[in-house]
């Protein structure tokens, strides 16, 4: 037993060191492996050294571990880089469900020793809280997953916020009443379970797809707290340590992510940005005409430029065009053109997501320039090529207070001499609003699928 405590101590340390190292690009990968090592020794330490584990149940434990490992590895290995956010959401939901089930079984243990009202109220309270938080995290993550794979649409019920807050208070009220012995039927557990799952669904349902990363990060910290409840329940330091660490780090990460998008957390949770609010502030109507550019003209324009900045957006990722984009960059570099990528903090579906996608196609890390560093450079840029991005280059964020994205920091592409927007159609971006950049005299549109158009651009450039 004492040896197990030492294993837990080491595991807890690896979690802190792991998270610390994950915060720096050079050490991030090692940090992840260190935390994984700590987790492994904690798991096997528990199986072999924890008092009360029956050897007859080993088969179930190892069976579960093997099944989970095989499915988990396959899913994690098979998922495309563009699908990362939903994968994280899915795994998060699994953790939440796991925490919820622990509460269900522990409550059952209590029932075997007598009426639950005789049990220690602190223990009961922890069981209920673990169930509530775990279930919310599970249901919420599954809805977030559905939204990211675009199987679930944003839906706002009338009085949604009032209903949500009322429901949450009701759940906590029932849990408190049961803990203090005012409710005596053991079925109260299933009532709490059902209401918590419902709350998880209603909580995420109205939030726009563009805000899912923030929601996932928040649910991530919920699962951390649910795991910590298990730590209290079993007086288990490593669960408490890991759970609280993720709970607090996750909450702060949520806030930091909101800041990178220049939005407040309340705004994200209540604001219904990006969908579901089609009648709320559409922004100014834009008049003017757009002009198209042919591929060969675009190729010539770029070839005789000194500096080209590429602004990649989710459209590039969806079209799987990151590799051909890298090829375009190389062709231009061979012509002596300076090429850089301007990365908006929320390019892609999550902060940092675009960097991962481009790095996957071998784009050099130091060519990826973050927004604050690239913005002053647009003045000296000849051509900005915007591939599948829209809201992050919409000037309405700066000069139209009625626009739903007003206040979001954007890339100042209109400072450059020319902008070329590569898009499939004139359809609005994720926020569902028009982009006045398209109507700017300095801008040309290049319609078509990102991958196909880029491929044609590259062959035009090569034949020049």
């Amino acid at each position, binding site marked *: 037993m004492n040896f197990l405590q030492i294993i837990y101590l080491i595991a807890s340390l690896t979690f802190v060191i792991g998270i610390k190292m994950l915060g720096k690009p050079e050490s991030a990968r090692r940090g992840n492996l260190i935390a994984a090592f700590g*987790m492994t020794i904690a798991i096997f330490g528990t199986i072999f050294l924890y008092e009360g584990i029956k050897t007859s149940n080993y088969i179930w434990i190892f069976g579960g571990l093997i099944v989970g490992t095989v499915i988990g590895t396959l899913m994690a290995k098979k998922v495309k880089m563009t699908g990362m956010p939903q994968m994280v959401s899915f795994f998060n939901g699994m953790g939440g469900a796991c925490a919820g089930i622990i509460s269900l079984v522990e409550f059952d243990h209590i029932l075997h020793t007598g009426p639950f009202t005789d049990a220690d109220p602190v223990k009961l309270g922890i069981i209920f809280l673990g169930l509530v938080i775990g279930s919310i995290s599970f249901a919420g993550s599954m809805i977030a997953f559905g939204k990211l794979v675009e199987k679930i649409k944003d839906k706002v019920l009338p009085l949604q916020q009032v209903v949500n807050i009322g429901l949450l208070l009701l759940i906590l009220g029932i849990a408190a009443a049961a803990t203090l012995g005012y409710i005596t039927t053991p079925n109260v557990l299933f009532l709490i379970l059902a209401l918590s799952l419902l709350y998880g669904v209603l909580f995420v349902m109205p939030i726009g797809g563009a805000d899912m990363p923030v929601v996932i990060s928040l649910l991530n910290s919920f699962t951390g707290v649910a795991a910590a409840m298990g730590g209290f329940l079993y007086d288990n330091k490593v669960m408490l340590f890991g759970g609280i660490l993720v709970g607090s780090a996750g909450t702060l990460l949520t806030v930091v992510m909101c800041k990178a998008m220049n939005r407040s957390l309340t705004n994200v949770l209540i604001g219904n940005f990006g969908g579901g609010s089609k009648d709320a502030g559409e922004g100014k109507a834009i008049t003017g005409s757009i002009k198209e550019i042919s591929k060969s003209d675009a190729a010539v324009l770029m070839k005789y430029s000194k500096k080209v900045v590429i602004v990649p957006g989710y459209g590039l990722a969806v079209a799987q065009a990151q590799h051909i984009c890298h090829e375009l960059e190389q062709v231009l570099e061979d012509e002596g053109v300076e090429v850089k990528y301007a990365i908006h903090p929320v390019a892609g579906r999550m902060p940092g997501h675009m960097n991962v996608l481009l790095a996957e196609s071998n784009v050099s*890390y130091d060519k990826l320039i973050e927004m604050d560093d690239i913005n002053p450079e647009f003045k000296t840029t000849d051509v900005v090529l915007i591939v599948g991005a829209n809201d992050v280059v919409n000037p309405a964020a700066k000069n139209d207070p009625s626009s739903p994205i007003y206040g979001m920091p954007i890339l100042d592409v209109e400072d450059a001499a020319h902008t070329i927007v590569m898009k499939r159609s004139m359809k609005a971006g994720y926020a569902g609003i028009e982009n006045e950049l398209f109507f700017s005299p300095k801008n040309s549109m290049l319609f078509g699928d990102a991958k196909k158009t880029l491929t044609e651009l590259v062959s035009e450039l090569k034949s020049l």
Partner: protein
Amino acid sequence: MNTIIDYIANNQLMIYLVILMIFVGIELIEKVPSVLHTPLMSGANAIHGVVIIGAIIIMGEAENMYATILGFIAVVLGTLNVVGGFVVTDRMLEMFKKKKK
């Protein structure tokens, strides 16, 4: 009420640990470049998979059908969280290798 005060008194170290961990968590995340937000979230996601320890305990102590079935599901789901979480994070970070110009 007394039971809650007793609990706090008997578990002072746990409470201190929780409070300190909250600050450690905040301290660790501040000033992380936004490039790393996604892998960091994913890594933290894998770490809360430590809930699997609880799943192993209920599975290991299981004596009836109810606990065995739920315990088994919990172990599978917990493992999914841990293994999937770490593997996905590693795949993301694999992309961040330094490349020569």
